[in-house]
């Protein structure tokens, strides 16, 4: 069945017109498809070997060769663009939620548009535009949020009425619609031909392409890629790029040094029809009906329509070979709900004759975002895969970012949301992947409301207190596989169900979190923060200190027992990590980082610490349970439990001491709370966790102690203007840009990474500035809540986006954090952002198209926080992370 389609969709003219790279694999005289091509021998070595001749592989080859790398070999096990790339629907859509994805899609669109002119290969590019329909008000809000993002990026986009929808498409039924979003620049392409065009251009730039060559595994020497083994011999190489699509997982695991690439294939169906009696115009817009879970595009005068069903069919869990793709069955019964949705949307199609139901497997990832970057375990091993059925939309941009990453050492955008290192080993379980992608695929169409959590693959990493907390009404979310408490539902109040918290407005937990915050402010709360990444670095001599002084911007040569907040910066001064480091002894340090830093930070340190057997780096995350005691009465609880004075004179802020709590010994107590509130974090060897927790709760009773969760913590840290790595801070943000100059010791006497960049910034000023916004005319009960990614307007002009937000129970206002840029009014060029520039503007935050006045601040409200505080200046300046 699929074979007919192959002929129909693929334009094979490139062979005749552009024989140049074809000749690499195929002798000139045997161009007929039946003759076996004479394979050209593989080169013995190359700088880069790319595995996979689909859209991602060819895009990486194209961009690498454009950037000047020429010694590249691309290997494809079958034929170029013959896998998912050939079968996919060919829709280029920029309507994306995540900013970096949006940029990739926008770049792809512009790239494909000029590709035919550049290469001479017909790509079938047609600018049709796309219309995303909303059947509900919530869906319309979701579309409006995307529209806001698109508009500030200069991508034309408008929210339109159902009537306008009817004018754009002749067949559409609009009776159940409340609105829609129209993106006129979205396009259709023949995806296989785009891929072939990229290959052609790459080939002209010197990239060697070999078809029918499969990579069996990658060889590794001393933690670096040394070559690839193929069924046609070996190639030595410095870099390997895994673009094997749905086979990337298997390929990653085939070598002796496994590279974990968490993705899993699902069957994906779409329908092709014969042309309509009155064939559709070639530029009729593509319709996306997320509430009906379908998309509908023009296809040769008929339609192509597929979707993302609620009950996906995962496949290849045990791993298979490519031959099976061609043999996948059509499954009409499975397609029935989507067909119903199609006929409901376009009832006139009833009489249209079916041509084929295509089964085209797509690979999905555990968090719906694609996977790119370098392996944390094997240097020179790069990956670009797991496109979540948006390979065409992202392919161009993703290939560009990966090529930049390889050539320059970093991409030109913050790609942390896509970085392979966001995953840990837990995501390598086939069972996990199978279950998770069955949840992810339907999510492609589900409404994305703030704070949704995955339901599958849960309860894997848990604190020893999990059951205790759960029994007390804990509601959980997951980070990096670790269960963390959102908040505690008080007894008798468990009427809250999941659906009610799925809202763009005020959520049902508002009062619950409010009372937890109040307790943190007035008494004391306990938050289990065991998920944080914890490393110990120690040495026999001064190696640990010397290395850390180079890798971190703050001065770590502090007296034993001190805790230092510091960034782990890259050459450009950007935050690779933001952490707290305690000096345990002269020669050993204890380092606390965000939960999702476990893989990234480890890889960063491992590759940069000297190869010295006297210097050890150990991941001790699993060894300690962390309890955060927040609030003015934390002092009292802890001193009663330890019979040790805990007041500021004896235990100043930013201090660390091993002590006993209850019967348990060896508890690391630190006077930080990650919120700016007074209190302590207890790092407890796990076997004492339950004991210490019970002691704390019992003793705390008379001080009004209660459990609290991360939502309370979040509200506290945001109203205190504390930035959070991974959300507010990233590799493109320097301490200078977020008011943390004091955490940088430019004069500490030793060189450190990023020093030069920071010195330069110090002299020349910064081009963006982390700013706090307090919403003025926002009604918490009635208005849409901010989330993150909302555009910021200064004097009516777009200046940047928010990165996080929370309701401040103290200010009784919403607080948004975000970056303000200064774009030249005429040229759009980025200018230096000064304090005056920030302070002299009138600000508005755009939430789903509605603008709210906001007051900008560069420093937190110290006057509001007038509790008994020790060393206010230290604590307030101690920006920490969630």
């Amino acid at each position, binding site marked *: 069945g699929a074979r007919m389609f192959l002929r129909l969709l693929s334009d094979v003219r490139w062979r005749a017109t552009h024989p140049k790279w074809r000749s690499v694999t195929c002798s000139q005289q045997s161009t007929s498809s039946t003759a076996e091509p004479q394979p050209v021998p593989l080169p013995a070595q190359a700088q880069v070997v790319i595995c996979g001749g689909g859209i991602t592989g060819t895009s990486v080859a194209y961009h690498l060769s454009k950037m000047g790398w020429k010694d590249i070999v691309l290997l494809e096990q079958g034929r170029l663009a013959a896998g998912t790339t050939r079968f996919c629907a060919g829709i280029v859509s920029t309507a994306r939620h995540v900013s970096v994805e949006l940029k990739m899609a926008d770049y792809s669109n512009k790239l494909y548009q000029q590709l035919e002119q550049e290469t001479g290969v017909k790509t079938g590019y047609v600018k049709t535009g796309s219309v995303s329909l909303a059947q509900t008000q919530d869906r319309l809000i979701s579309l409006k949020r995307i529209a806001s993002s698109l508009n500030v990026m200069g991508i034309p986009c408008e929210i339109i009425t159902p009537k306008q929808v009817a004018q754009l498409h002749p067949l559409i039924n609009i009776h159940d619609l409340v609105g829609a979003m129209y993106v006129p620049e979205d396009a259709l392409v023949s995806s296989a031909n785009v891929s072939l065009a990229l290959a052609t251009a790459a080939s002209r730039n010197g990239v060697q392409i070999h078809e029918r060559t499969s990579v069996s595994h990658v060889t590794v020497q001393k933690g670096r890629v040394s070559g690839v083994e193929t069924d046609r011999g070996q190639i030595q190489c410095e870099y390997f790029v895994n673009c094997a699509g749905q086979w990337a997982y298997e390929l990653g695991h085939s070598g002796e040094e496994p590279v974990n690439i968490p993705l899993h294939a699902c069957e994906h169906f779409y329908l092709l*029809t014969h042309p309509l009696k009155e064939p559709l115009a070639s530029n009729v817009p593509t319709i996306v009906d997320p509430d009906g879970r379908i998309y509908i595009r023009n296809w040769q005068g008929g339609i192509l329509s597929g979707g993302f069903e609620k009950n996906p069919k995962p496949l290849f869990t045990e791993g298979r070979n490519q031959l099976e793709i061609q043999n996948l069955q059509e499954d009409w019964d499975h397609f029935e709900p989507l067909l119903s949705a199609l006929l409901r949307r376009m009832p006139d199609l009833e009489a249209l004759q079916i041509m084929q139901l295509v089964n085209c497997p797509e690979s999905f990832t555990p968090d719906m975002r694609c996977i790119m970057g370098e392996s944390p375990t094997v240097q020179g091993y790069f990956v670009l895969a797991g496109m979540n059925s948006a390979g065409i939309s992202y392919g161009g941009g993703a290939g560009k970012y990966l090529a930049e990453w390889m050539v320059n050492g970093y991409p030109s955008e913050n790609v942390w949301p896509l970085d392979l290192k966001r995953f840990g080993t837990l995501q390598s379980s086939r069972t996990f992947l199978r279950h998770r992608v069955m949840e992810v695929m339907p999510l492609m169409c589900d409404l994305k409301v703030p704070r949704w959590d995955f339901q599958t693959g849960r309860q894997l990493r848990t604190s020893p207190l999990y059951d205790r907390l759960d029994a007390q009404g804990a509601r959980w979310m997951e980070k990096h596989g670790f269960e963390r408490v959102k908040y505690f539902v008080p007894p008798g109040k468990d009427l809250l169900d999941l659906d009610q918290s799925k809202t763009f407005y005020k959520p049902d937990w508002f009062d619950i979190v409010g009372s937890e915050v109040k307790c943190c402010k007035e008494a004391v709360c306990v938050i289990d923060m065991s998920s944080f990444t914890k490393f110990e670095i120690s040495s026999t001599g001064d190696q640990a200190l010397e290395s850390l002084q180079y890798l971190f911007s703050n001065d770590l040569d502090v007296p034993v027992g001190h805790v230092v907040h510091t960034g782990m910066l890259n050459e450009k001064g950007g935050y690779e990590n933001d952490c707290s480091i305690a000096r345990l002894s002269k020669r050993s340090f204890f380092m606390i980082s965000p939960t999702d830093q476990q893989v990234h930070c480890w890889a960063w340190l491992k590759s940069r610490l000297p190869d010295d057997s006297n210097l050890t780096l150990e991941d001790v995350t699993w060894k300690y349970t962390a309890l955060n005691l927040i609030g003015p009465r934390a002092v009292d609880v802890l001193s009663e439990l330890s019979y040790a004075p805990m007041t500021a004179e004896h235990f100043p802020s930013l201090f660390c001491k091993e002590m006993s709590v209850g019967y348990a010994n060896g508890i690391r107590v630190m006077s930080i709370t990650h919120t700016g509130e007074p209190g302590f974090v207890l790092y407890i060897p796990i076997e004492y966790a339950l004991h210490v927790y019970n002691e704390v709760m019992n003793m705390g009773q008379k001080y009004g102690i209660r459990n609290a969760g991360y939502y309370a913590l979040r509200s506290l840290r945001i109203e205190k203007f504390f930035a959070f790595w991974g959300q507010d801070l990233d590799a493109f943000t320097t301490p200078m840009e977020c008011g943390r100059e004091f955490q940088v010791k430019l004069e500490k006497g030793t060189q450190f990474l990023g020093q030069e960049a920071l010195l330069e910034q110090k002299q020349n000023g910064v081009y963006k500035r982390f700013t706090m916004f307090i919403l003025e005319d926002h009604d918490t009960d009635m208005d849409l809540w901010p989330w993150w990614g909302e555009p910021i307007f200064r004097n009516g002009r777009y200046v940047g986006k928010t990165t996080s937000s929370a309701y401040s129970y103290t200010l009784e206002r919403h607080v948004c954090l975000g970056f303000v840029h200064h774009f030249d009014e005429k040229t759009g060029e980025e200018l230096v952002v000064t304090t005056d520039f920030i302070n002299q503007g009138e600000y508005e935050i755009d939430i789903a198209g509605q603008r709210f006045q906001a007051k900008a601040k560069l420093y937190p409200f110290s006057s509001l926080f007038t509790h008994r505080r020790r060393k206010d200046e230290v604590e307030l300046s101690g920006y920490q992370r969630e």
Partner: protein
Amino acid sequence: FYLTPPQVNSILKANEYSFKVPEFDGKNVSSVLGFDSNQLPANAPIEDRRSAATCLQTRGMLLGVFDGHAGCACAQAVSERLFYYIAVSLLPHETLLEIENAVESGRALLPILQWHKHPNDYFSKEASKLYFNSLRTYWQELIDLNSGETTDVKEALINAFKRLDNDISLEAQVGDPNSFLNYLVLRVAFSGATACVAHVDGVDLHVANTGDSRAMLGVQEEDGSWSAVNLSYDHNAQNEHEVERVKMEHPKSEEKSLVKQDRLLGLLMPFRAFGDVKFKWSIELQKRVVESGPDQLNDNEYTKFIPPNYHTPPYLTAEPEVIYHKLRPQDKFLVLATDGLWETMHRQDVVRIVGEYLTGVHHQQPIALGGYKVTLGQMHGLLTERRARISSVFEDQNAATHLIRHAVGNNEFGTVDHERLSKMLSLPEELARMYRDDITIIVVQFNSHVI
């Protein structure tokens, strides 16, 4: 009072059982793929029984349903014992000798049957010794009688039925020193049970029936439709041949009193049955046994009561009618069920529902376009129809359960009505029997690849 769908399901599925014949080398070489069985009580306790077993010393599989009356003791005993009698009747002389020698010398016995039992299908431990001794006497006689001829299945079935009924009768006459056992054998003999047993060996299917349970063959016609073929005759007043037979066996003077109100002697619905010695023994024998029996028996009005016009016993026999059928590729399944099913559903509906269930769940062919011209609307209609069919099947993993769901819950349109189902299943114990009878069903699926 209203049962939710999960509650309904838990009631319907409480007794369901499935057996799949194990595959060898990825292939099932047996003519039987497996069977689904289930029962739904109306009496408390249920008086129906079911049995299924594979013969280990000969080939073939035995499946049977047993409908008890006047208590469940007889049906229970028959369900435990009958298959042993059949298996022994089928054994060749050498095997019988081997078994006898093993018993004689205290060696381990060759296993004769492999049972396929639901956990609720129990065997009485107390009587096993007694039952074993009777069985041993039977095979000893078979050894002595060695005819040298190969065993005919039909004859073996008839012999086994008759012999077991005879043993039941004798055991009650002789009694047992153990008072519990003594009471048990009397209860077995004074209650009754019908039996409908199928023996499948390759393409040879024998059904031996005594009473009004029924065996129905599901045949798929070339056009895919289903038709029902009877493989048993009901032994009751509706069967003219049966009425004729009974009349032939007794003097003309009794002709009018033999069958009254469609019942034997105006009392018994089935015209053939195990036990029921009140219709088999002479009046003297009945009186002697009841009087010398335990008090419980003596105080029981039913056992003391002598049927009216009781002149020339026996009036009742356990001898089965045996029908042979050679399986054909179009024979897809066999339904064995007690009359509780057949009185609520027409045989044609039974076969259609099971047929559609089995093909729907296990073999519903995926739709392939082929070269046909199909419009989106036509396809949509076809898919909606298939979906509706599957959704009613979807809840059940067991054909027998699916059949019971229909038998109890069908509305006038022949589709399952949840409200009706809920009402029927939530009837109090004392009312249930007025609206429905015990239902016991076994659905045997045949292997078309072998047949």
